């Protein structure tokens, strides 16, 4: 096949909304890296200033600017993969040009490696194996599931199999029997809250978009699952993509939206193919397209692959990224419900939220309510990883005891080990230890302790781990992902990382703690987005729960500095 010309690539993508990311990927893959000529062509083709375009390209982790960089292997050096030999594996692969990538959402089966669009599992010994993504472990309790209720069915990603278990019935029923307002009422009554971390009431969000003036409206599925230790959206997209599409189509029907985007993180190439197939099937079957199920209403879904930036999971940065702008978070208000994609009303929902919505419209608000424990509505998928017998995604009823999840469902710590700490909200909730693990997983219980579930990532560290090292690795992640827009996060993450590494900072414990606490307090209070407010929870919880390790660390750093000076 002939290599596509610049003009062909530009023509291909300019006809679709949000063309910059796919254009960059197209040139990147064609040329093996992003060349200066490619940027000049895109700049002319999209009428985007060249300096802006260049700056934006440098923002993304995976867009190579040297020849051959596009095909280089990428080894995840996230926390969990590090515990499983990622650093050793990377060293072995360096000679072939392999590069490190931050947590890439393969923590249930480390070490996660990308070679081109191949997803592999590596080991410290240097072996690489291609094997299918793990399904969620069978639910060992008798609690009912929502999002995972059919996910273990063979070939669930095929539309006929999806339809066999009631798939797309919710959409058909809604279009036939329900007004858009009634769909919103069902979602609102179910108590479904956003499952991406912020926990905003989904029914309210849909209602705000439905009522907001301005057309066209947009549904954005936030599939930029970048939070370290979170890999739940990936499994939903890999094994139940039509649930996500049906959820988006329902959201579109409810709000009057005519276009949808799935903003997928770069590191999920398998999901990219699966989603694109599923969208084509759904279009063929009339669930998407110019006239959804013959209603005359249009709804198209476009998959847009990110290029490696944690911050693009923040909805303002995500929207800027889609629009081809520099992916800084946006100032809020205005919120996306009134000024979202291209300043028009936009629903931004997480993958899990949208998949749950399809089940809720099919089974009813009361059914979803009843899945939770006590007065807590519904379920939440928790991604469990690290030093635990059975890592994986577990769909737990809200209000579920964390201890039961860790010890009974996931089999507890490894033999002869005890759990030293777990993280909450991936890395964004800091560490939790000891009796603090006796909590139930629901926002009220967590918030009353200053915690939050976030996107539902829980990493487990047993008593063989050096918590300073874990905290340092976590802070390295935030340093690498801080966007640089706001001062407290840009400088604060760097200074915290240096102190956790022992490279800089006061040599006496008192002043050391003062600095770390002052930075943390300031970042938490006045950073511009969730990254900056969450990152210091790492150092804060470290200082709070591991005072001896901190004291030893400061003393050791001082001694090493003294040795160096001598």
């Amino acid at each position, binding site marked *: 096949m002939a290599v596509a010309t610049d003009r062909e690539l530009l023509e291909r993508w300019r006809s679709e909304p949000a063309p910059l990311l796919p254009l960059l990927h197209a040139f990147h893959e064609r040329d093996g890296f992003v060349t200066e000529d490619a940027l000049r062509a895109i700049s002319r083709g999209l009428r985007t200033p060249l300096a802006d375009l260049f700056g934006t390209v440098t923002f993304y982790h995976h867009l190579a600017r040297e020849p051959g960089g596009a095909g280089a292997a990428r080894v995840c050096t996230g926390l969990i993969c590090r515990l499983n030999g990622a650093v050793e594996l990377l060293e072995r692969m360096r000679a072939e040009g392999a590069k490190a990538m931050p947590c890439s959402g393969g923590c249930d089966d480390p070490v996660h490696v990308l070679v081109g669009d191949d997803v592999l599992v590596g080991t410290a010994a240097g072996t690489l194996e291609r094997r299918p993504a793990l399904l969620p472990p069978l639910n060992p309790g008798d609690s009912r599931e929502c999002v995972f209720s059919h996910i273990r069915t063979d070939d669930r990603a095929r539309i006929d199999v999806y339809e066999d278990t009631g798939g797309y019935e919710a959409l058909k029923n809604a279009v036939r029997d329900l007004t858009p307002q009634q769909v919103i009422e069902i979602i609102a009554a179910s108590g479904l809250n956003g499952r991406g971390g912020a926990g905003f009431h989904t029914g309210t969000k849909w209602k705000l978009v439905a009522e907001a003036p301005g057309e066209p409206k947009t549904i954005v599925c936030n599939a930029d699952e970048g939070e370290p230790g979170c890999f739940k959206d990936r499994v939903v997209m890999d094994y139940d993509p039509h649930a996500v599409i049906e959820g988006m189509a329902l959201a579109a029907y409810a709000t009057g939206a005519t276009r949808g985007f799935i903003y997928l993180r770069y590191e999920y190439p398998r999901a990219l193919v699966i989603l694109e197939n599923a969208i084509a099937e759904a279009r063929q079957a009339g669930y998407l397209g110019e006239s959804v199920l013959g209603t005359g209403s249009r709804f198209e879904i476009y998959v847009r692959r990110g290029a490696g930036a944690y911050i693009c999971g923040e909805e303002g940065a995500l929207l800027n990224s889609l629009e081809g702008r520099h992916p800084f978070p946006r100032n809020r208000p205005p919120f996306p419900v009134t000024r979202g994609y291209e300043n028009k009303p936009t629903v931004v929902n997480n993958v899990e939220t949208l998949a749950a919505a399809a089940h809720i419209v099919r089974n009813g608000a009361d059914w979803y309510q009843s899945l939770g424990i006590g007065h807590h509505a519904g379920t939440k998928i928790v991604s469990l990883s690290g030093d635990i017998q059975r890592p994986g995604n577990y769909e737990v009823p809200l209000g579920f005891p964390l201890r039961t999840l860790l010890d009974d469902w996931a089999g507890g710590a490894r033999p002869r080990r005890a759990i030293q700490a777990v993280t909450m909200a991936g890395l964004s909730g800091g560490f939790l230890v000891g009796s603090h693990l006796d909590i139930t997983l629901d926002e009220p219980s967590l918030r009353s302790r200053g915690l939050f579930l976030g996107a539902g990532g829980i990493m487990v560290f047993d008593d063989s781990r050096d918590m300073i090292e874990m905290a340092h690795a976590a802070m390295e992640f935030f340093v690498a992902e801080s966007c*640089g827009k706001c001062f407290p996060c840009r400088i604060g993450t760097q200074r915290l990382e240096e102190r956790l590494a022992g490279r800089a900072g006061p040599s006496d414990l008192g002043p050391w703690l003062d600095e770390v606490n002052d*930075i943390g307090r300031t970042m938490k209070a*006045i950073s511009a987005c969730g990254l900056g407010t969450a990152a210091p929870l790492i150092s804060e919880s470290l200082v709070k729960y591991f005072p001896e390790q901190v004291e030893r660390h400061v003393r050791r750093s001082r001694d090493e500095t003294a040795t160096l000076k001598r």
Partner: protein
Amino acid sequence: MIMSNPDRKLQKMVIDGVEIDYTPGETIYQIADRSGKHIPTLCNDPRLEPFGGCRLCVVEVDGSSNPVASCTTKATPGMVVRTNTDCLEEYRRVLLELLVSENREIDVDTLRGYASQEFAELVDRYDARSGRFVGVRSGRSRTDDDNPFILRDYDLCISCYRCVRVCAEREGDYAISVMNRGFRTQITTEFEGLLADSACTFCGQCIQTCPTGALADRKAISAAELQGAVEKTRTVCPYCGVGCSVDILTKGDTIVGVHPAMDGPANLGALCVKGQFAFDFVQHQDRLSAPLVRGEDGELHETDWDTALDRAAAGFSDVVANHGRHSVYAVASGRAPNEAAYILQKFMRAGWGTNHIDNCSRA
């Protein structure tokens, strides 16, 4: 921002215990600013869209769990705001200490640029030279960029992006942008090149909005060693017909630089490369200071005005006598005042009877 909608009814809010009227659409910062509050900021330039990056302008708002950036938050009816609680002042001090820790130096010559003292002034106001938060520095000065006008001393950069925004929003050049992210952020041009190879027009607006002196007026700082205080004289740019207001900077009798007048009605702080940098002619050694006429030897010789004017008149008359009245042509300097331009066209039209008169600003 100019609020011109007369239908908008004034609303009320409370800042630091005092009720204040505001026009819907105003931000907390704008209202506080015109009420005489000195909320600190480093990323804000009133001519630019609010950015919300530096977080120094955060204020407490009743009902909001965390402080909000006053520059990006619009006032709402009945809003209760506190601008200077101990807690806020502490955050601001820590932020400034962090900024001090990332830079090579804080105190810079005022000749670097119009806003160059903003950072040092805030550091002093918050007593932020504590030496805390030591670590690696951010920013890399571009010592390789030897253009004659703009010093790119990014060792002093605090990533407020005022330069990037002024270039895009005010000048429309989009010559500079942001590369990398987080602490590795750098201000850059396309492909990290030199300004001369970029879309830069050397208007100098980035220099004048830079709050740390990281971008500096190279011509002005070459006069840093000159004795004497810098004096400012308000005048109008002598180049084209726009009439940009400028403040001419002098040390003694020497012109050392130009600041655009932020309140200049025609330019609101904007200038072009000529108004900003091309002032050397005023005191240049080659500048004519006496009339010259060409002698028999072919060289120019100093003379008096009467002799020079007689020679010029004779030259014009000879040409017209030999070749007709349309054989002469005058081009008026764009830098000439109206009166001189008027006289010149009169000279051509009434004096010689030709319409061959033009000006040099036609390009």
